[in-house]
């Protein structure tokens, strides 16, 4: 088990390195840098001005070197001018004596996440605030999505082909066929617009960042939960129907155990192993849903900064975002693998 976790962690780190390198290369392509220079300097810069701006700010180096500096494996660049020394690890321009005291390495290995050119702020603080907002959203999504999906799946899978099964399966197919931007628009239209006139909820969740209430927070949560719910419910149903045809269930029935006891004591435990991995693997999709829903409901969280950073080629913020999302994806994969082994006695004991 220890070796398994160690190997998986090694693959995880390799994947994270590859992914961030790809993002790094794509954001550092020449037209992207030119756009960055023009948004940071001014829009009527000549080609030479763009070049000198890029060189002055350390963007002119080879991509691999820049990646090493961002990672913290190579020393940050410095440049000495008449006014003093500037560099990656130095804030602003400082005299030489003070610049010598600054750290030589300042990549993410040292905890330096960089500076966002879009928000003019430290990347680490932006990420922590926005991730907190999204974490709260995700928490409520999971609170609504997981129990209801499991209940729907178990009820449907209990008696395969029954009326309950048919109707609940249709509901779960319907929710998997409705992407967030469709269900969100329909929900907003029904519950918030003045045309329909229900006005039960608010169409934006901007105020939910400080003061989340049922009125302004329920619709975004519901929108994300609905799309994920159908898939988990279908997987639970499949797993439940498989368990219900197993021999030990038949034996229990023949012994005269009541249907409730069969479900609760014999079937449920084994039927919930597969949904656990599915729920864990659902996290990357939730991340997608978060981006759409945060844009739709104007809730400024992790998805919102992703859109902002990508739209403005904010290199270091984008890299931080990809690090976070890759870690989320890979850690949930790891948990699902370990959990599967742990929950399934057939694998655990052998």
């Amino acid at each position: 088990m220890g070796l398994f976790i160690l190997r998986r962690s090694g693959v995880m780190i390799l994947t994270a390195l590859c992914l961030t390198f790809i993002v790094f290369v794509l954001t550092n392509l020449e037209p992207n840098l030119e756009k960055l220079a023009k948004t940071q300097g001014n829009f009527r810069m000549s080609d030479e001005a763009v070049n000198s701006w890029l060189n002055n700010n350390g963007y002119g180096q080879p991509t691999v070197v820049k990646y090493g500096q961002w990672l913290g494996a190579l020393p940050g660049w410095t440049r000495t001018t008449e006014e003093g020394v500037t560099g990656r690890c130095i804030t602003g321009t400082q005299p030489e004596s003070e610049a010598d005291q600054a750290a030589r390495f300042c990549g993410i290995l040292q905890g330096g996440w960089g500076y966002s050119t879009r928000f003019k702020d430290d990347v680490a603080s932006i990420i922590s605030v926005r991730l907190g907002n999204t974490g709260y959203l995700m928490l409520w999504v999971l609170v609504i999505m997981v129990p209801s999906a499991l209940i729907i799946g178990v009820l449907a899978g209990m008696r395969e082909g029954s009326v309950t099964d048919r109707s609940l399966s249709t509901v779960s197919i319907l929710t998997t066929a409705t992407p967030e931007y469709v269900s969100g628009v329909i929900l907003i239209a029904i519950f918030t617009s003045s045309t329909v006139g229900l006005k039960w909820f608010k169409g934006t969740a901007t105020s939910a960042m400080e003061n989340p209430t049922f009125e302004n927070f329920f619709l975004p949560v519901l929108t994300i939960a609905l799309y994920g719910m159908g898939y988990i419910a279908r997987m639970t149903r499949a797993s439940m129907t498989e368990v219900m045809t197993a021999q030990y269930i038949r034996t229990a029935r023949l012994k005269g155990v009541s249907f409730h006891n069969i479900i609760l004591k014999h079937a449920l435990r084994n039927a919930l192993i597969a949904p656990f991995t599915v729920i864990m693997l659902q996290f990357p999709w939730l991340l997608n849903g978060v981006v759409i829903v945060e844009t739709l409901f104007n809730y400024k969280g992790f998805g919102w900064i992703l859109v902002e950073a990508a739209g403005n080629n904010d290199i270091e913020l984008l890299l931080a975002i990809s690090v976070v999302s890759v870690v989320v994806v890979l850690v949930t994969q790891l948990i699902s693998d370990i959990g599967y082994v742990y929950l399934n006695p057939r694998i655990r004991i052998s």
Partner: protein
Amino acid sequence: MDPLSWTGQIAFLNPVLALGLGLLGLSVLAWIVLSCLLPENRAITPSGAGLSLPTGPRELTGLAVRLTFLLTAAVIAAYLILGLVLGTGAGIIGAIAQRLLPVWIALVLLFALSVRFKQRMGMYGKLFDSPIGMIGFGLVMFWVFTGIFGAFDLIITHDPLAQLSGLKNKVPGTPLPSPEEGDFQWYLLGGDNLARDVFSRMVKGAWEVVKIAPLATIFAFMAGITLGLPAGYFGGRIDTFLSFLANLILAFPVILLFYLLVTPEIVQTGLPQYMAAVLFAFPLIFFAVWINARFRTQPHQNRLWLSVVLIPLVWGYFSVINQTESKINFLPQSLDLFNITGGILVVFVSVVFVNSPTVFRIVRGLTMDIKTRDYVAAAQTRGERPWYIMLWEVLPNARGPLIVDFCLRIGYTTILLGTLGFFGLGLPPESPDWGSTINEGRKLLAIYLHPALPPAFALLSLVLGLNLLADGLREESMKD
């Protein structure tokens, strides 16, 4: 001209429909509740007792559901048929029903022919034994026909890009203020915030999806199959490497990937074109290996088939990736068959790129399962080459799950295309695709519902149809 109401002269059907829907809802509710509460009826009907009326509450509610469903379906059919006859006399619904006349004709013909000849058509024929599959297939074909006829300008009432003054954000059924000779007199589903016809844009949007989604899914399948078969069959290092690559792409948040690939700055560097050059090469490789594995021992036939299939494919391949005034531009103008414009190539490439790792994983898993079967061992004992076994023994036996996944994946591709449009990536801003239209419409959603809802329901019904179709296919293929 007067503004159109929703139902016009056939308004007398509205209470009937409301009654039917109400009864249907009630009976379905009663059905579910009763089937939960009451035990199953396990009594064995004595044979030869003849037909008997359903007895007991369970059977009665079941019958009630069936009857109310038939009633509702009949009322809806009446709306459509009366609408077809009366046209604008039957309000907006009638006018839309009449505009969609070619679609109805095509659907009726397709279903009549398919049901008539279903015995002879294998898996496709079996689809018509399952009601779920039939409903799904009907929904999908409705949008496919709408897209195709819409592309021929048969259905649309106005130019989807034309802005008519005075119709900005107008409600459905608003007449044109100053119609010219030969113009359609109304905006059937209203005007959007740039005074364009919502109905025509929705119909044109169907064509955008029908044009891109199936083709992109086919390319994703070609790439996934070509790489997944050897990964699953050989295992070992090649499997480790390819699986790592697939997991790498799957670990990317899709929207970040789209933003990184589809922005104009990246398009300028020619990166999507290089990716197209790689991704579109997979069908060539696939067909070349497929034919070569089969006819390797008959060189004459091999050469004939290879040249018949590959020459047009290679020409098409070069025409696709070659584009004037871009990084890949080597083909003379006269040989370039077609140019893909308006960022469609970029959208296409990114959708294929996102889809192919999942297909790869499915094919790999299926191959690992199938290669343990006896017929593969028999082929190995016969001395068949690995590629022959993969493409002519394993692949045909994996077709069932692959066809089901193909339907689901077209739906997912449709969702991805909508996502791209929703974020305004790739397609030109005035493009009528559903994602872009939803994005424009949502900004005014608090006041005007009509610009955003038609494309939203269109996308929903198409994806739902594809899901139901996949479900029906799965059910029918399980019966074998």
